[in-house]
């Protein structure tokens, strides 16, 4: 199975990336090469094998639901591209 340029274009859009025509061509080739490599996995017998999401068998630690972080919004917003009235600003979404 191999990906068409239309499919690669759709994948790029899902990942919020846009590709020029030449990038689309080269990426279609690259992505198909990588997926060909991944096809080797089909040879592995994984019947009754549990997926391993994490190297250590640990459970998520829980803590009391208390406020533990101090408010640093001013500091964090100081590096934002655009802010106003304590908000991050983006182009208008709804008129």
């Amino acid at each position: 199975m191999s990906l068409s340029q239309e499919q690669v274009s759709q994948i790029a859009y899902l990942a919020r990336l846009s590709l020029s025509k030449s990038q689309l061509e080269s990426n279609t080739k690259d992505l198909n090469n990588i997926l060909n490599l991944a096809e080797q996995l089909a040879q592995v017998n994984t019947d009754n094998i549990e997926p391993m999401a994490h190297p250590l068998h640990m459970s998520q630690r829980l803590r009391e639901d208390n406020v533990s972080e101090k408010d640093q919004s001013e500091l964090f917003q100081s590096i934002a591209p655009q802010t106003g009235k304590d908000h991050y600003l983006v182009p208008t979404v709804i008129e």
Partner: protein
Amino acid sequence: MHTKTLAQLAQGLKNKEFSSVELTQHYLDRIEKSDLNAFITVTDELALIQAQAADDKITKGNASVLTGIPYAHKDIFCTQGVKTSAGSKMLDNFISPYDATVSHKLNQADLVMLGKANMDEFAMGSSNENSYFGDVKNPWDKTKIPGGSSGGSAAAVAARLSAFATGTDTGGSIRQPASLCGITGLKPTYGRVSRYGMIAYASSLDQAGPMTQTAEDAALVLNVMAGFDEKDSTSAERDVEDYTASLNDSIKGLTIGLPKEFFSEGLDDEVASQVMAAVKEFEAMGATIKEVSLPNSAYAIPTYYIVAPCECSSNLSRLDGVRYGYRCDDPKDLEDLYLRSRSEGFGEEVKRRIMIGAYALSAGYYDAYYLKAQKTRHLISEDFKKAFKDVDVIMGPVSPTTAFDLGSVKDSVSMYLADIYTLSANLAGLPGMSIPAGFAQNLPVGLQLIGNYWSESKLLNIAHQFQQQTDWHTQIPEEKD
């Protein structure tokens, strides 16, 4: 001064043979003269302030073990008030508002940060050719790659531009550049060093560690870096050992496993013979050699190149031009802002991995790729479990070849194949090291050590004993003016 090891420098500072300011200035001068492009940012003013503060502590007699030692910090660790770029245009304007836990620990130990080391963009690469800030050159031959992704860190230590460096290793990014630059590098067990503030690539694989001249130096640095951190939900709740405590233990009776799969086709003959010569040296020191098998290690490459891109596509989705980092000029609407900020901000290899991840996680393909890879990962990890029933440590090559020419590997898949020996340890979460083991084609060759979970002390002991018998780790690339 720069020819001394970290341990010797620490002694020199303590004995007041030289001050931290003198030592720091000496390294800054060397960095200034260097053309390796090992650093993205040199923090000279900050370094001299930190060095002065360290000297004050030494004078007052309240210094700790590594007070005043200058180091290079991989530009993936957040450093408050200092640009933290992860080698990307996306974060070229990112002045971190907070310190990573590793940065904080190094500060608490009074270490002196010389600057932020160059790296492959978001740690994705094996040659340091994916940095927005340019290629790093191998100090042994400037036409060669230094390895990646911690290429700047490895080059800095090899060229003695810093006493040590920090690195991170997701699929070999500490061990492979350490091998290709002829230094010592340790990737600890997953969870040993906090990932808080370490810009995430693949969260279930990423692990930070020291890059140094010697195993003794690595033990000293790991003592500072390691430890439980409640800010990292995957940090291990285990006490930190003194990693220097067992360096001098005898390794007589050690059983070394050689995986036959690590010595098959694709391995350069000269690299193989250097690795085997090192193994023979261990035999002479009283170790026993045993063949082991890691039958699923052949699938480490496809497994890794599904798992890591899936995690990266998720991790890098936060970089959208809204809260920090790069934003495109004059976005016409929100979608245009996302699309152009990400397309202009990320480099080619990063985009490829994001797309592979987005595809492998999408409905209809998840089972065939991501789930399948996670199951294969389990089998790879089981192989090690079996092997460690019979042996104390696994040894083999780090990289199938010595450092290759800059610009010579053009396609992604060929580059991925060079990671064959390092990926398994990350997938299983095991600790691994690269130690200098000789030269082939006049370039350094590393020996890889893989240990069982939490066996960092044992690995450092084995490496230290080897370095008592050999002098590969003391070799320095010739400097031509």
